[in-house]
């Protein structure tokens, strides 16, 4: 009986170790970011990543002309304020949006007239003494819809 209990403990340890090892951030945006209403469609350009407090990272997306986009971000509380900047992906690198100017709002909408590449830059903003080597998940959810009213007739009235 004594040996039996030990085996159970070892097996439980192994299961726990394997389960923890398998954790990843890949679907963090799906489970944690705030979603827009159902008139928006999920964009496969949505992304999650592993982050350390205080770090910055970016990725490039394509936004089509004549469409409306919704961006939502969420990260572990240890990552502090999550700053999102939308930057023109060319030599000028014009900053088109910065949520630091809007109290670090964690979602926003925008309309886009011509198709272009944009850089989505994400920064974890923490105090210097909060910078650690610990790793947490962060997610950026992107949704879109045609911004013409004709495409949303079902949304009019009751």
């Amino acid at each position, binding site marked *: *009986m004594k040996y039996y*209990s030990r085996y159970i*403990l070892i097996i*439980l*340890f192994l299961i*726990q170790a394997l389960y*923890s*090892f398998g*954790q*990843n*951030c*890949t*679907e*963090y945006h*799906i489970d944690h970011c705030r979603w827009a209403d159902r008139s928006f*469609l*999920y*964009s*496969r*350009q949505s*992304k*999650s*990543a*592993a*982050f*350390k407090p205080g*770090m910055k*990272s*970016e*990725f*490039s997306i*394509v*936004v*089509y*002309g*004549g469409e409306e986009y919704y961006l939502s971000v969420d990260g*572990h509380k240890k990552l502090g304020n999550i700053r999102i900047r939308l930057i023109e992906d060319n030599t000028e690198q014009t900053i*088109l*949006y910065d949520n630091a100017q809007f109290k670090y709002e964690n979602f*926003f*909408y*925008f*309309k*886009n*007239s*011509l*198709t*272009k*590449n944009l850089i*989505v830059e*994400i920064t974890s903003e923490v105090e210097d003494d909060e910078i650690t*080597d*610990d*790793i*947490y*998940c962060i997610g950026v959810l992107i949704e879109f819809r*045609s911004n*013409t009213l*004709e*495409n949303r007739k079902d949304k009019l009235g009751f």
Partner: protein
Amino acid sequence: MSLKYRLSCLTLVLLMIGIYACKSNEPKENNESLGFSNDSDSTLIVHQNLKSSHYNYPSAKEMFVFIQKDNKLTFKSKLLNPTSNQSKYVDSRSKLLNLGVYISDLTYMTVFKQSKNTDLYFETIYTLSDQLRISIPYSENLLNRIKDNIANRDSVINYYENYSDDFFNYLNKNNKEHILSVITTGSYIEGLYILVNLIDDFSGNSEIIQKIADQKYTFENLYRNLEEYKSDPNAATALQYLEQILALYNELDVIKEPVQTTRDKNNQLVIDGGEKLLFNQEQFNQFKSLINDQRKSIVLNQNVYNEQ
């Protein structure tokens, strides 16, 4: 075994569960890929599933969705790659590229709300995925549900749309981004093939022609993404297809307007300006010819490029 010992064991187990619950969203290793870029090689061993792409690209659905509002465009079943061609795909390159082709075909069918034969196309996608060892856990059940509900158009479309998102999330989660990029190459070429062949008469101002020109940005991002896997023979072949397409895109005229942001009456951010790409008729004909040739070589499994 004493009660004290049993209680100790129970406490230990509960403690482990507690630790796991608190840490469930915290990757444990410090030497894993951080951020959204692909610049860390040290990550490949420990947490491959955290590796993420710097260049993102939209799905075939995002490419097609605008045609829903164009009443002049009609569904043309002859543009689909027949499911009978599946037997021609015996190597991994043709399986990957044509999996992308069939995904675009099924997306095209669902955008036009065509449910006829969707089960055959879904079954072909399922078979090719299975042969490539891309096994979405519930896809066999889903295939049966689609067959059972084939008369219910909305259900079939809904099943497929959910499956499509899960399919791509599965590949990302399992660090198969290089496979995803090759599949997407097939998907994009099929998407362009359908779009260019939906046009009967060329008009430089038409929305569909503009949309085809706009795909340059998605092809650029896909190309940059694939470049990271160019040592893979299938990715190298896909790159050759994309290089030819991008060469023609780079010849288009460009009208540049300064990018500026404003707020509309609802205080919503509006991004105006940028670069508008323009086809003339000759360029469009050349482009259409290239896309038709590339698509033919993919669906008939004629590798026109030398293996690297």
